[in-house]
């Protein structure tokens, strides 16, 4: 199994340096300029790894969906989603709203060798789908390219880096692996989720 741990990304460091310098300028006598809340949010968003824009949505029960996000979003911030389980979605749909932390998590996340309960949240659809499914959470404006039956590549107009999502079934669960492209074209693992399905299914994961 691949192991992933999040590491600070260069854009995050640069953004923090920028914020630090802007703060120093203010203390040095430059009149402080109030940053609009929206602008602050944009700076914060730019500082995050682009892979943090992708999460996992367990909507097998559309009336009680659960989700996991790499980066917690402000409460109630609607998230788009893309269906993974058949029939697979071709483009993101709107929207599901994250709620409070789930009392009992069923989704696991790999931390090193171990798969431990993920930071799972309850959620609510703005418009409940008719059938249950498993999907990805995506921040808005994601451009989706399905390269194989088990691989999706995502990009956003404001970011150069791409996100690769590999998904497959093992004996009784679904694996979702998220990686982010680097400057030299390499893919860096960012997250690996496991969703127990509650029954045995036909496995299609490649041998690891």
């Amino acid at each position, binding site marked *: *199994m691949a192991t992933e741990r999040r590491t600070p990304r260069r854009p995050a460091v640069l953004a923090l340096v920028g914020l630090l310098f802007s703060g120093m300028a203010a203390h040095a006598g430059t009149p402080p300029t109030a940053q609009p809340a929206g602008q602050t949010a944009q700076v914060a968003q730019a500082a995050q790894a682009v892979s943090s824009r992708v999460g996992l949505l367990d909507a*097998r*029960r559309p009336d009680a969906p659960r989700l996991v996000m790499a980066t917690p979003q402000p409460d109630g911030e609607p998230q788009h989603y893309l269906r993974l*389980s*058949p029939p697979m979605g071709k483009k993101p749909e709107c929207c599901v709203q994250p709620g409070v932390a789930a009392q009992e998590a*069923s989704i*696991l996340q*790999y931390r090193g*060798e*171990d*798969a*431990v*309960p993920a930071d799972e949240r309850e959620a609510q659809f703005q418009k409940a789908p008719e*059938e*249950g*499914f*498993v999907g990805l959470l995506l921040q808005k404006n994601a451009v989706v390219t399905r390269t194989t039956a088990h691989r999706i590549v995502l990009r956003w107009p404001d970011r150069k880096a791409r996100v690769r999502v590999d998904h497959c*079934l*093992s*004996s*009784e*669960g*679904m694996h979702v692996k998220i990686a982010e492209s680097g400057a030299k074209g390499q893919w860096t693992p960012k997250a690996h989720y*496991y969703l*127990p*399905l*509650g*029954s*045995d*299914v*036909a*496995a299609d*994961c490649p041998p*690891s």
Partner: protein
Amino acid sequence: MADSSGSVWVARFPTSNQTSDLIASFRTKVESFIAALQAGGASVSISATLRPPKRAYLMHYAWRIARENLDAATVPAMAGVDIEWVHRGATGAVNAGAARVAANQMVAGYSIVYAPALTSRHSEGRAIDMTITNYSGKAFNNATGTSTTVNTAAQLHALGATYGVYKLVSDPPHWSDDGH
């Protein structure tokens, strides 16, 4: 009298999370392994043991009727499951659409999104899903009573193997009597 297929069946034959529902030979091994883990300070959370074969049968054929257009009349009977998969209208004529609607209710009730298998180690009482945490760096007795320090997942799996509880690595919570 048989009950027609539909959501009423979903709550019947629930999945167990009790080790007492495993087959006797595996139950002994699992309980010894868990006792050793807990004695050494690890935390064990069991999510599933026996998935009754009757439940697997209901899930499997509900999916096939709902999503694969299986003719409800062709579903084989199962002893102890008095279900009527075929639905009929007021005149007694077969209503395939009603059978599919009822099967879809079951699929939704079971939260199925991928075709479920008819048999598995769980339905045979030979597997357990459990999440083991807080084990790293701690000492546990193996099946022969020898204390061994466990630092890695591989060492944890090896410890389980001494009890006859084998890890299926592809599925993090899954352990069984043969690793499948």
